[in-house]
């Protein structure tokens, strides 16, 4: 009787299972071939069987795609493969990947994607990331996994994107008038896999961000975050509700079973909560992983004192931008735009400043008085006897090479004009130099990287084109000029601060004394990029603070904050310095919140 009931139960179970059985439409062609007496040799069929057997997928107890990608991965870190395998085999592709920062969650997620694609499980995949990481994800997937993802900007682009990547901040926008998400098309698609980076931002069930993700139809879901909750255990509950609804019971049950009245952070039953989390979560700590060495970043700000005439030329350009920047009709050109696009150029080098002035003079869209003023400054530049900044660079390079004759140096600048200028000057010093910038072919890039790693001592590079490259054999970085976006600075340092780096990384920064540059460099280098954070933590902090999304000017909000401070200070340096200090305080608070969160997370999860 018991057996009979068991059999009945078994049958009932199978009834719920969805079985989709199809015969190929191509069969009709084969039948037609018989009718029209088209036959091939038996040997061809035997070869076909052998090809099927050779290419047949093995069971998922190994990553068959690993051989295809390992050439592109700088290091073989077994925990990344193990993680990918566990997600696919044991967690059925639905997991919270909560590895500590720096362990390569992106690589693990990329391995999951690649494996699924190679095995033919995935036709449509979606990655949602913070705005600042969209391009980085796209590049990593392209360079390391040979996967070409499309960035989604407009709603009309969803339909055709098989492999899509989008900024979560952009797609979560909700139109209250139509009562619909602006990117509602994403909800009509059945996704074979959805990956959410920095998923801790999905802590609140009431936000459109959470609701957007919840409405996605998805077969597999990966949530990536090193800190699944920040202040309240409910945040963890909400995150898991996306992954497996009801895994921790209803909210009331969760409160009863896992929360202590009046304490939102400490669980009532930590071991039980850990057990439940273990069913859906993978978390590894840096200390557990062999072969992960973290090197220190040692910052140095090289203060440059301009000559009186240089200072005067610099002030004149700032003055041009703030007070004499008019179009041919005499209207003031948007100052924010001017500051955003021109200021970094003029702080870069005298060559870049002169290039800017020459272009302005030759361009009829500017007013005559503006052009006249520009001509005056240009003439001043031309009569300068020396360039203190480039001289300081030459001295710095000499100092580094004297101390370590074999040590390699990577010099970064934002502007191709400055790159050329530095190259011209250093070439005269008998140093072996490689130039690296956007627009090089893949072969040319490979050639130059090889040259830098083998024979050249110095590489001068712009930010464009060097994304995703590994220069762990070099430990000296010179920022000739500095982007006002700390994420770009992180990416520069990130070329050197990689697994495999054997020395502490020296980050040299040239900053002109008594200009706003001095304060910005201090903020970004001394208070953000070189304070002991692990590679990858700063973007999380800025994301948490909402400072990484695009502002109206096109730059990120953090950068715009600095631009705004500059505008409001009206070239009054002490006012600007005090504004920058305020931003610094805000960042300090953000870092402190992040550290606290890490501590809480560790207390509960580890």
């Amino acid at each position: 009787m018991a057996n009979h009931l068991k059999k009945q139960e078994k049958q009932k179970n199978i009834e719920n299972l969805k079985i989709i059985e199809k015969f190929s439409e191509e069969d009709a062609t084969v039948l037609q071939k018989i009718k029209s007496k088209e036959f091939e040799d038996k040997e061809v069929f035997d070869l076909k069987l052998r090809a099927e057997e050779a290419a047949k997928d093995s069971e998922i107890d190994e990553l068959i795609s690993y051989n295809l990608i390992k050439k592109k991965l700088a290091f073989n870190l077994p925990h990344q493969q193990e993680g990918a395998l566990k997600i696919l085999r044991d967690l059925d592709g639905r997991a919270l990947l909560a590895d500590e920062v720096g362990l390569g969650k992106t690589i693990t997620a990329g391995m999951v994607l690649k494996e699924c694609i190679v095995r033919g499980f995935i036709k449509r995949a979606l990655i949602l990331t913070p705005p600042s990481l969209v391009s980085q994800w796209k590049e990593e997937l392209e360079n390391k996994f040979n996967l070409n993802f499309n960035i989604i900007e407009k709603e009309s682009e969803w339909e055709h994107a098989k492999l899509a990547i989008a900024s979560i901040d952009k797609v979560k926008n909700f139109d209250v008038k139509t009562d619909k998400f602006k990117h509602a098309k994403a909800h009509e698609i059945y996704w074979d896999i959805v990956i959410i980076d920095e998923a801790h931002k999905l802590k609140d069930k009431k936000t459109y961000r959470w609701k957007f993700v919840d409405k996605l139809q998805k077969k597999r879901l990966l949530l990536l975050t090193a800190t699944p909750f920040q202040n309240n255990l409910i945040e963890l509950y909400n995150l898991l509700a996306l992954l497996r609804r009801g895994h921790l019971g209803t909210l009331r049950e969760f409160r009863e079973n896992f929360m202590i009245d009046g304490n939102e952070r400490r669980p009532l039953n930590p071991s039980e909560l850990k057990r439940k989390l273990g069913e859906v979560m993978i978390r590894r700590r840096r200390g557990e992983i062999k072969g992960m060495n973290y090197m220190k970043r040692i910052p140095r700000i090289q203060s440059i004192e301009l000559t009186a005439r240089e200072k005067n030329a610099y002030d004149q350009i700032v003055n041009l931008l703030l007070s004499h920047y008019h179009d041919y009709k005499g209207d003031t050109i948007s100052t924010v735009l001017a500051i955003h696009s021109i200021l970094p150029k003029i702080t870069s080098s005298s060559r870049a400043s002169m290039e800017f002035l020459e272009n302005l003079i030759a361009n009829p869209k500017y007013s005559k008085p503006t052009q006249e003023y520009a001509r005056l400054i240009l003439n001043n530049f031309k009569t300068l006897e020396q360039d203190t900044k480039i001289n300081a660079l030459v001295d710095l390079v000499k100092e580094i090479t004297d101390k370590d004759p074999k040590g390699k140096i990577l010099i970064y600048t934002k502007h191709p004009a400055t790159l050329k200028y530095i190259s011209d000057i250093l070439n005269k010093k008998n140093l072996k130099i490689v130039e690296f910038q956007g627009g090089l072919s893949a072969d040319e890039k490979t050639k130059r990287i090889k040259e830098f790693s083998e024979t050249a001592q110095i590489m001068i590079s712009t930010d464009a084109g060097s994304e995703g490259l590994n220069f762990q054999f070099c430990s000296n970085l010179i920022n000739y000029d500095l982007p006002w976006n700390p994420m770009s600075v992180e990416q520069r340092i990130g070329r050197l601060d990689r697994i495999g780096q054997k020395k502490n990384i020296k980050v040299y920064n040239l900053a002109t004394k008594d200009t706003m540059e001095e304060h910005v460099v201090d903020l970004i280098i001394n208070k953000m990029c070189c304070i002991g954070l692990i590679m990858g933590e700063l973007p999380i902090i800025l994301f948490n603070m909402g400072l990484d999304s695009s502002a109206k000017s096109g730059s990120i909000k953090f950068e715009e904050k600095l631009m705004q401070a500059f505008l409001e200070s009206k070239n009054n340096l002490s006012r600007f310095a005090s504004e920058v200090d305020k931003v610094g305080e805000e960042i300090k608070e953000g870092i402190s919140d992040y550290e606290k969160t890490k501590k809480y997370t560790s207390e509960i999860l580890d």
Partner: protein
Amino acid sequence: MQPKNNTKELMLEFFKGSNIEDKNGVLTINNAPKSFEDFIGKKAPYVLVFDFDKHNKLADSELIVKGSYFLSAIRDYMRTKGQTTLVKMNIKFEEPKIQSIGLGNCKIIEVNKKEGYSFIPEFTFLSICQYLNDKKQFMNKIRIKDGNILDMNLGKLTRGDAADIGEVEVFNEYKAAKIKLQEMISEKTKEIRYNLSIKLEKELKRIKEYYGNQIKESDEEVERCLEKIKLLEAKFKHTYFDREALILKRMIREYNDRLVKLKEQGHKERLKKEELFHVNDELDKYALSVNHSLANINLIYYKNCTYTLKLKSSKSDSIKILEIVYDPFFKKFEPLTCSSCNELLNKINISSTGKIVCAKCLSNSKGKK
């Protein structure tokens, strides 16, 4: 034939006829069939390596391992090849005994014979079963003869010649083979289906419990609100203090607002809709997808003999010509059916209208007379 699993040998076989250099385990294929070049979208030469270290050293090499693009492309290319083959079964022909044919009301007065061919189509299906993050692949061979599975040793088969045979239609056999294939795959995936079902039921139970409890909690909260309102209203009636009355009034209003929200038409419906969404998500997640495709039809043919019998009725002068096929493989005549009732014939009878009928139909026709 058992397929070999040596990828290098497979490559040598695949590019047979091409100019191939084999040096230190690296195969350089200098030329390849144009159809393959078009298929893969890259012209020869191809440098094929079979281990990662060599792949790492040779910049433009193709790594031939499971999952690699090149190997998968060869498999996909081959899927369009070798779809139909023809083989001949050579059987020693032994003359049948014509006397063994059961005769009723007639006798054979003349026999003529002519040679022809019988066919046994052998279908090879590739079935790919995909579920969760796993895939199982099966190759099944099914031979169909007279609507039934033929599972026996056919002896030595030789290369066939298309000129031997006329037009052949195997659609009915294909339909029968499909039904058999589905049974076979169902049997082979029994364990998979069972395991998937167990997992699915667990997930469905979780979702149902969650939403069941959500609805229950919401009902309980309605109850609690009602009780609280009742209590507060009673208090309100008996309070003497303005300040307390104000507080109680505000509390009653708040509970009423909450009640309205909980009793809102949409609340339960929204939960039910959400439940359905998640249930469907799980059903899709744990679905088993089975894709069958015909990898090959191997048409087996062998000689048969058709006898033309001239039959004379024993009751009249009526003469009937009948063709009957002898199958030397099964050593039997192909069965005849009654032209009236379609039943298989044991004995041949000629009706008054000159048709071939069974004894029963013959006697019925006599009765009517």
